[in-house]
């Protein structure tokens, strides 16, 4: 009888898989899984070097059978820049949270895009600082209650949520920018396609590639996992629309200046 394996853990997941580090209903491991599948499908996991930020996403280091650098908070793209510049045929990518990438790490993020580093960044957006107990993040929605905005985010005091994928698309050094989600199976597949495209841009040397992925945080949102999915599909997607914001094929813009 012909048996085909249709489920199981990705090959690059160590045993036990990383999900054990995460809260019930957290979608970070789902995104980890997409990245794992993409690296395996593309056959690039062996030459990948992953640079992690600081936050819940970084727990993946005990699960992934990849070369991994766990960087200082917000500095993943600085460190990844040097790894890639010194080792140009490695596949270099960062995994960062929203606070790590566009909060404390905004300078490094913008610096990498200004230079058009041939690096891929996957930013997990759960609209708060999950690891430290659910505080205000740059991505927190207006009105959202967090540990440091007990009455909800007030635009007059804390400003408006930042649209990272749209921002990334404005940089000439950025080759690709998209925002995905994993709250439905269809979105899972679309996000996988985005991440695959992002790595392909790096391989083709087109420039910086960026994918923001929305992720549920049940304990800090004070919602059940199922209600979290509903919140993403309604409130969050209406603030952070899904889709591709930039898809550049030509490397011409990166050639020597006039």
């Amino acid at each position, binding site marked *: 009888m012909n048996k085909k394996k249709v489920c199981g853990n990705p090959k690059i997941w160590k045993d036990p898989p990383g999900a054990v580090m995460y809260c019930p209903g957290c979608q970070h491991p789902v995104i980890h899984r997409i990245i794992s599948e993409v690296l395996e499908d593309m056959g690039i996991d062996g030459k990948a070097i992953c640079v992690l930020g600081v936050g819940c996403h970084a727990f993946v280091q005990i699960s992934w059978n990849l070369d991994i*650098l766990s960087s200082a908070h917000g*500095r993943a793209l*600085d460190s990844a*820049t040097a790894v890639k510049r*010194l080792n140009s045929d490695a596949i270099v990518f960062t995994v960062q949270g929203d606070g790590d990438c566009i909060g404390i790490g905004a300078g490094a993020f913008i610096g990498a895009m200004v230079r058009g580093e041939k690096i891929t960044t996957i930013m997990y957006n759960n609209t708060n600082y999950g690891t430290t107990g659910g505080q205000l993040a740059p991505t927190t929605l207006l009105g959202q209650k967090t540990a440091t905005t007990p009455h909800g985010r007030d635009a007059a005091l804390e400003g408006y949520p930042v649209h990272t994928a749209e921002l990334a698309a404005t940089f000439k050094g950025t080759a690709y920018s998209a925002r995905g989600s994993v709250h439905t199976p269809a979105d899972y597949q679309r996000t996988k396609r985005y991440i695959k495209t992002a790595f392909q841009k790096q391989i083709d040397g087109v420039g910086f590639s960026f994918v923001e992925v929305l992720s549920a945080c049940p304990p800090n949102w004070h919602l059940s996992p199922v209600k979290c999915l509903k919140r993403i599909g309604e409130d969050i997607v209406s603030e952070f629309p899904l889709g591709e914001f930039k898809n550049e094929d030509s490397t011409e813009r990166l050639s020597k200046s006039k």
Partner: protein
Amino acid sequence: MTERMFVQGNEAVGWGALYCGCDGFFGYPITPQNEVTQWFAHEFPKRGKVFLQSQSEVGSINMLFGGAAAGFRVMTSTSGPGWGLMQETISHCVAAELPCVIVLVQRGGPGAGSIRHAQMDYITATRGGGQGGYKNIVLAPSSVQEIHDLIQLGFHLADKYRNPLVILTDGILGQVSESIEVKTIDFGPLDKKLWALRGRERQEDGKSRIVNSAVGVLPLPPYPNYISWLKHIEEKYREMEGSELRYETYEAEGADLILVAYGYTARVSKEAVNMARAEGHKVGMIRPITLWPFPYSVIREKAMLGCKFLVVEDSLGLLIDDVKIGVEGRTDVHLVGILDRHIPTDGGMIMPGRVFEEIKRLL
């Protein structure tokens, strides 16, 4: 191959780095070290090496974190305010055991202070200026030749101990030109960097690596917990103290007064010793070459003989604390400092004549 050159101290940083196989330089403009960064911008890319101007000193030091983790010899250079910004990740480099070299061309502080020479970062350089109370070797050259030589030793020791290392110079040493011999110095073999990140399939054993500065949060083999890892770090510090102490004595035998100085003020002090000796005064000098580890033992030895001490440093008094620790209260320790410059401006310098005056006053 040896090449004779006439170069500025700041340029000698580059020649030293080039001749010991530095792979990448990451820097940000700041006075008075700009010639260092500019040297690398001119000389590295054409040799197939990496030069990158970062978006900030925070960027530079985190690029070192990445480059070192990937197994490359990487360095940066900065001055006061940039040095302050780098502290966090120097601490991360210690924790992740990542070797790299940081050149600190000291200028006046505190704050933006002055853009010209001074010696005011001694404490943060020697005491672990960032979080967590770490240690790193600090090498203090006092000539252009020695800058070239100690950069090479610096890379060797950084790799040997898997620890960041600081080369402490100053705006005077950075600007002065001297004739030097440029060559590769052999310090002996080093272990292969089997721990470095290359991508799993390029590792000799085919196994993936993790480099992490939070061993207390996510323990990494071979350290089962935070304290066992701290013990390992502590053993490394003790080994550095035991094996890497370097200093030079000058006319110190039988001296009644010992000058202690590093960097440009050590040159000034040497001239002052010559002036004093020419008039028959029994004056000598101890010049620490490693500021950490510090040569407390040789200071103590002299203090036990009853020698007085005169510290010459272009600050309000920082190195003097280490001399006092060495002296253990046995004898007097005096200071010729930044307030003794020949003119009261940011361009003023501590001159040999002023030091000689103080020598005569103390004897």
